[in-house]
């Protein structure tokens, strides 16, 4: 058959391929597969923050009609004691019910499996756990002598003696503990037939789940099948595995032949699937009177867990952001009796760009400079960290374009200058950055010609709402020279070729480059007129430029903030971001990614804070009534734009990744605008009305 070469699909905005199914509610998520012989899992969580389980009295629970088993460390199936896991995983977090040790409040200490959801939850409430309780410690502070530096500080020159130091900005900036809270709770349906394990899982990467579960359960990975075509968000917490997946695996092993189901409650998600560590960032900027930086010093104190280590890399973005001859970036981790932190959208960059970007605003005010001009004066011509050239760096273009679109020129050069109907009004700006991260593993894709002009592209990638499904269809259509509607993409299943997980904004760049390579391999082998059934596969190609350039996406975010004179209420009527992130493959879904990031950034700026009660060690505001996330009415005029950026070095698509940069810098832009509105400098997130009342 003949096909006319389609107009280039890349860069256009076809509708989300999975949109109609999702809007109709017929796309099945992990918990929703019709399975036979199902049973429900209800976890029992520790009520002490540190201790040892002495005894579990399950007699009342077992007496509840419909209860199949009550698992605890004395009777749960054994997992591999020393599994061989990828660097993403924390083995101790997955060793569920393998010992009586309690490392944090809320840890799983038992679980009920029952015929019905209601019976499982009733019985879980009737399990009595007796503990030996030990003193616990959940208090994060940057004054602790037991904080450890997980690596040597990055040092260039001498920040303490940096000259000139006509202007010094030195403050501590803090960001709150946050929980990812994807709308779909972490869910697993597991079935073990005595040899093979099938998991319907809410995950950002089916192959990573297979590898990990096989390792902890002592199974051959080929006998583990993981299915996850539809995933209700993740934002990082569905990247590494957490205790619930291990628990569901255990329950399936304990009840071979049954399909056991576990969906966490919203409350359980505040203990069991990770979180973004709070950060305390000591930032010191020194500059000459014209605002040229002589020194940048950022030391971020974060919390890790006594159970397993995870250090939020909050000082990282400052390594490459602005020029300055004297630099120090370092981390201090305090190991607490708390759950293990995890990835949350733009780990490192998101909290780590709050302190420095507010400090840059403070520096601009101190120098009497426009904050855009200050940033332009400190543009590096090479990456200050590695001294490599940038593959492309268009922060300046983003700042200029954003200023034009936002109407920055009319901004008063003084703070607290504008009041409208009882609201103090201000404008603020901050920069965004996110690196082009090497994918966490390789990927492989298969292309098969089905006849009738139809090509099927298969790889075990994940679309957690990113639009990957749609964008990969476009990439394949262009690489094959086939019309968009004749390309079908299959993903989210371990029976498909192995692909890296969705994380670090690497999805489209790595999977897209792999699909591109597979299409080229297909054409090389089968030409333009393939026989039905013709197939080709290819791996993610190495990037020959990978070691030669520093590769980052950039952005500029602008906020208008209104602070009520009487109540201190904070509103953000306008948010505008301009991004330089390489080639944009799908304009429709890309805009949603940027806007979604900015919306979560707004949420971070104004609402999100998990509050830990030090006496008991748990998050007290563990639901959506008390842990607020941005609702519809919080988001008013919000716009995302991008500049055309050609970057031949990042990958064959020229795409840098867009899932995370949208959240980076938003909170700083809001805090900076609030200062412009009120003259009150807020250095601690979230920005709240009590920061302004009486100030």
């Amino acid at each position: 058959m003949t096909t006319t070469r389609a107009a280039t699909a890349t860069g256009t905005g076809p509708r989300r391929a999975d949109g109609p199914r999702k809007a109709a509610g017929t796309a099945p998520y992990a918990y929703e597969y019709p399975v036979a012989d199902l049973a429900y899992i209800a976890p029992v969580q520790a009520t002490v923050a540190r201790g040892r389980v002495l005894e579990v009295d399950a007699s009342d629970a077992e007496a509840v009609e419909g209860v199949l088993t009550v698992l605890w460390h004395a009777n749960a199936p054994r997992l591999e004691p020393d599994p061989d896991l990828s660097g993403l995983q924390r083995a101790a977090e997955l060793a569920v019910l393998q010992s009586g040790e309690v490392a944090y409040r809320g840890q799983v200490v038992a679980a009920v499996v029952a015929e019905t959801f209601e019976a499982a939850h009733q019985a879980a409430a009737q399990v009595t756990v007796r503990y030996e309780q030990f003193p616990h410690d959940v208090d994060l502070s940057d004054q602790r002598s037991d904080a450890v530096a997980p690596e040597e500080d990055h040092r260039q020159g001498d920040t303490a003696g940096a000259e000139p130091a006509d202007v010094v900005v030195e403050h501590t900036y803090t960001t709150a503990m946050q929980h990812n809270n994807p709308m779909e709770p972490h869910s697993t349906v597991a079935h073990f037939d005595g040899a093979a394990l099938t998991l319907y899982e809410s995950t950002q990467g089916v192959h990573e789940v297979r590898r990990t579960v096989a390792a902890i359960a002592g199974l051959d990975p080929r006998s583990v099948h993981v299915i996850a075509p539809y995933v209700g968000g993740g934002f990082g917490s569905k990247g590494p595995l957490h205790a619930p997946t291990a628990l569901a695996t255990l329950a399936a092993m304990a009840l071979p032949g049954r399909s056991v189901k576990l969906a966490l409650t919203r409350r359980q998600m505040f203990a069991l699937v990770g979180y973004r560590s709070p950060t305390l960032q000591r930032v010191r900027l020194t500059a000459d009177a014209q605002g040229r930086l002589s020194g940048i010093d950022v030391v971020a104190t974060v919390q890790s867990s006594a159970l397993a280590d995870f250090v939020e890399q909050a000082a990282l973005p400052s390594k490459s952001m602005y020029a300055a001859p004297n630099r120090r970036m370092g981390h201090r981790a305090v190991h607490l009796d708390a759950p293990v932190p995890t990835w949350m959208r733009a780990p490192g960059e998101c909290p780590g760009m709050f302190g420095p970007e507010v400090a840059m605003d403070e520096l601009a005010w101190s120098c009497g400079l426009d904050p855009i001009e200050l940033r332009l004066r400190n543009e590096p011509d090479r990456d200050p960290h590695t001294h490599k050239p940038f593959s492309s760096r268009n922060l300046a273009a983003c700042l200029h374009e954003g200023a034009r679109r936002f109407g920055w020129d009319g901004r008063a050069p003084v703070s607290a200058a504008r009041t409208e109907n009882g609201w103090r009004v201000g404008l603020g700006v901050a920069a965004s950055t996110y690196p082009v991260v090497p994918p966490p593993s390789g990927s492989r894709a298969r292309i098969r010609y089905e006849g009738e002009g139809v090509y099927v592209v298969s790889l075990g990638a994940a679309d957690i709402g990113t639009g990957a499904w749609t964008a990969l269809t476009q990439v394949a259509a262009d690489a094959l020279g086939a019309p968009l509607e004749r390309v079908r993409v299959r993903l989210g299943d371990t029976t498909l070729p192995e692909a890296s997980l969705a994380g670090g904004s690497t999805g489209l760049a790595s999977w897209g480059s792999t699909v591109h390579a597979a299409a080229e391999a297909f054409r090389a082998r089968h030409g333009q007129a393939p026989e039905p059934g013709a197939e080709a596969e290819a791996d993610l190609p190495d990037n020959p430029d990978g070691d030669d350039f520093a590769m980052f996406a950039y952005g500029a975010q602008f906020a208008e903030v209104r602070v009520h004179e009487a109540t201190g209420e904070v509103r953000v009527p306008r948010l505008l971001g301009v991004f330089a992130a390489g080639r944009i493959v799908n304009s429709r879904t890309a805009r949603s990614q940027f806007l979604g990031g900015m919306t979560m950034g707004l949420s971070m700026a104004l609402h999100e804070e998990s509050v830990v009660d030090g006496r008991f060690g748990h998050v007290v505001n563990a639901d959506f009534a008390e842990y607020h996330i941005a609702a519809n009415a919080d988001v008013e005029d919000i716009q995302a734009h991008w500049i055309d950026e050609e970057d031949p070095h990042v990958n064959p698509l020229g795409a840098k990744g867009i899932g995370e940069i949208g959240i980076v810098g938003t909170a700083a832009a809001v805090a900076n605008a609030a200062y412009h509105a009120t003259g009150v400098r807020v250095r601690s997130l979230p920005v709240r009305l009590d920061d302004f009342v009486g100030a």
Partner: protein
Amino acid sequence: MEADITLTVDGRPRALRVDTRTTLLDALREHLDNTAPKKGCDHGQCGSCTVLLSGRRVVSCLILAAAADGAEVTTAAGLGDEAAPHPLQQAFVEHDGLQCGYCTPGQVCSAAGVLDEAAAGWPSAATPPDDLAEGSAPVLTDAEIRERMSGNLCRCGAYAGIVAAVGDAARAHAPAESGGNR
């Protein structure tokens, strides 16, 4: 304790026996295999489980199935399907008012409720006082839509697209013919 109940779900009568503790949401999802309504919090705080109960939007996680005996329930899957989508579903796709899609069926049902509530003259906190006159229907401005849709959380942050989608549907939804798609 169990109860025998009947529900009309998406136009189809269904008889079932439920534990009296079973919520309407779990009855739909676990007993009737209708997973269009989603469980996001089970506390009535996120809106993912929104369905239309006798034409009005409710969070189905806060209603006991036994208490809904005899009710007419419309889920997103009943408003339309892939082949014949409801105008709201089309508008959500057109404006990309969704990403992961988990909150979307609830958003769609909630939006259907919003259109009817506005057509029936129900004000919201965002309704300008001048529009509160007897017999007048509030205009679904962006501010009205944001206010009325704020019971449905979207963690992906698709609010801008949701507002555009509901606005499109509102403009096409003549006040006189409410509920034409049920």
